């Protein structure tokens, strides 16, 4: 499904609630270091770091070094794939529902 050069499927990346929460946190701030992100979870830095790696592999998170600290920020564009996918089915059925409506009207005639 993915045509990007991502190491990981974006659907896979958002399949975990911790990672969805990380996305949310990063969406609400410009940039956050690991310790600030970790403060939001009942798990250690290593665990949060692993989740961030998965998000990075899907292209959802970018990081940069500032001194000794690594800061993370969101790159939301891969989420477009999910939106497109949901939108496709949503549109598919909406179109078909209009056709159903026409069919029901035709039968009345």
């Amino acid at each position, binding site marked *: 499904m993915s045509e990007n050069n991502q190491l990981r499927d974006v659907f896979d990346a958002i399949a975990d609630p911790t990672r969805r929460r990380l996305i949310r946190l990063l969406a609400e701030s410009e940039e956050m270091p690991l310790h600030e992100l970790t403060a939001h979870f009942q798990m250690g830095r290593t665990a949060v770091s692993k989740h961030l790696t998965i998000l990075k592999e899907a292209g959802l998170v970018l990081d940069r070094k500032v001194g000794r600290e690594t800061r993370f920020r969101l790159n939301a564009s891969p989420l477009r794939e999910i*939106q497109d996918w949901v939108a496709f089915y949503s549109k598919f059925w909406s179109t078909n529902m209009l056709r*159903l409506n026409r069919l029901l009207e035709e039968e009345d005639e």
Partner: protein
Amino acid sequence: MSSTLSLDFQYTASLEKIWSALTDSSKLAKWVMENDFKPVVGHRFQFRMQPTNGWNGIIDCEVLIVDAPNRLSYTWASLGQENTVTWTLQDLGDGKVNLHLEQSGITNDQALQGAKYGWTNMCGQLEKLLEQ
């Protein structure tokens, strides 16, 4: 965690008539796709449309529930995704019927777990994210 596309549509028609549109193969072809559907639990059928680039145009299905004229459910497998489509009809009175569609990814295939989450009603939330 919901993993379901959920949509509601209202029609001015009888339950029976909408049921017929959902379960009569020739009527179904007029608003969904060509098919060999039969309202028989366990019946395997296909929806077929013009193949497109990267898709053979075939959706493999199996009838799961036939509860006339209220509930119909079948699997919906294509492009490596295994979903379940469930139709629920509800008489609203005044000749109106609510048609509820649920398409859920209930597959137990780990590899499709990601796809399952695509069906969640996260659209609004994602849209907000994308606008940033």
